[in-house]
């Protein structure tokens, strides 16, 4: 191998290493979406709850709709940033088959009710608990949003602060599926 060929080989190796390092570095500062993925493309765990208006929320009865399942809490500032957008989506996409469901992971239902009123939430909101959290792989950090398709299958998970346009894009893709 000539000296020039050796140098080119080293060049390629160094470039590959630099690209790998760059990818690792970029990934380390990018928030994780779709983390554990354990529920992804599996049937969404079924649950029934009574919402703050006294109505029954039964996930199984929502087959045929796209469900945005939002785990939130009053102490989660990022969750409250998302709420007006979820209200807007329920208004805009409800006729196309979207159903937003809010699950409060608060310890105190009274504070959750206050936020529900404050943000004029136009979708059912119910209290969660550790059992429901565990069903969904452990709600160990908020916000946490799942998208469930018309067949009741989990299609996306968004953990932490998420660009809402990313959620909306996937939501629209699911609404387009029939």
């Amino acid at each position, binding site marked *: 191998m000539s000296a020039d060929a050796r140098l080119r080989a080293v060049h390629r190796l160094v470039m590959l290493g630099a690209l790998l390092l760059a990818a690792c570095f970029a990934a380390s500062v990018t928030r994780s979406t779709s983390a554990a993925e354990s529920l992804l493309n599996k049937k969404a765990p079924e649950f029934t709850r009574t919402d703050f208006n006294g109505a029954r929320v039964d996930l199984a009865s929502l087959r045929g709709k796209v469900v945005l399942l939002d785990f939130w809490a009053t102490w989660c500032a990022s969750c409250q940033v998302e709420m007006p957008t979820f209200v807007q989506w329920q208004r805009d996409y409800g006729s196309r088959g979207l159903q937003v469901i809010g699950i409060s992971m*608060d310890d105190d239902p009274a504070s959750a009710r206050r936020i529900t009123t404050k943000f004029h939430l136009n979708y059912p909101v119910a209290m969660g*608990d550790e059992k429901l959290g565990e069903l969904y792989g452990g709600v160990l*950090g*908020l916000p946490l949003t799942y998208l469930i398709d018309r067949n009741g299958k989990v299609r996306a998970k968004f*953990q932490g602060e998420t660009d809402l346009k990313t959620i909306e894009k996937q939501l629209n893709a699911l609404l387009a599926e029939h």
Partner: protein
Amino acid sequence: MRLSLVRNVGTVAVLAVLFAAHTQIHSQSGWGAPPPESASSIPTAQLLQPEELNHLLHASGADKPLVLQVGSHMLFAQAHIAGSEYAGAGSQAEGLKQLQDRVAPLPRKSFIVLYCGCCPWSRCPNVGPAFKLLRDLGFTNVKVLYLANNLGSDWVDKGYPVERGR
């Protein structure tokens, strides 16, 4: 050839830094400023990294800290750091009272580690007020576990010891 190599590596490095900066800025835009007494107000010297705490949990005697969760009780019930206790949400008056009662009998030099992990670090409403309370009470050896994203991704998913239940 060598010049080209240096130039290409430099370009990749600059692109990585620019991408990282863009990601950070983008992730923060539209979310407003962190609230007062947020976790960001805690001095860096008082922070403990997850791997450091994991190491301390395996220590014995005086080196082993009292670990207190000062966030959501519901999240605590799903998973908490093995051996830790629930001490009330730091963002609420009754939570701070619970924390105060828990530490009241302890010597002021006690090694205490606080954690929450409810939300991304700069958004956590609990650890800041809890840390301030202990400092105001005169505790001199208090650390706060730095959980960048949440307890799930920064502790549980890394395989560090966890327990369930209230």
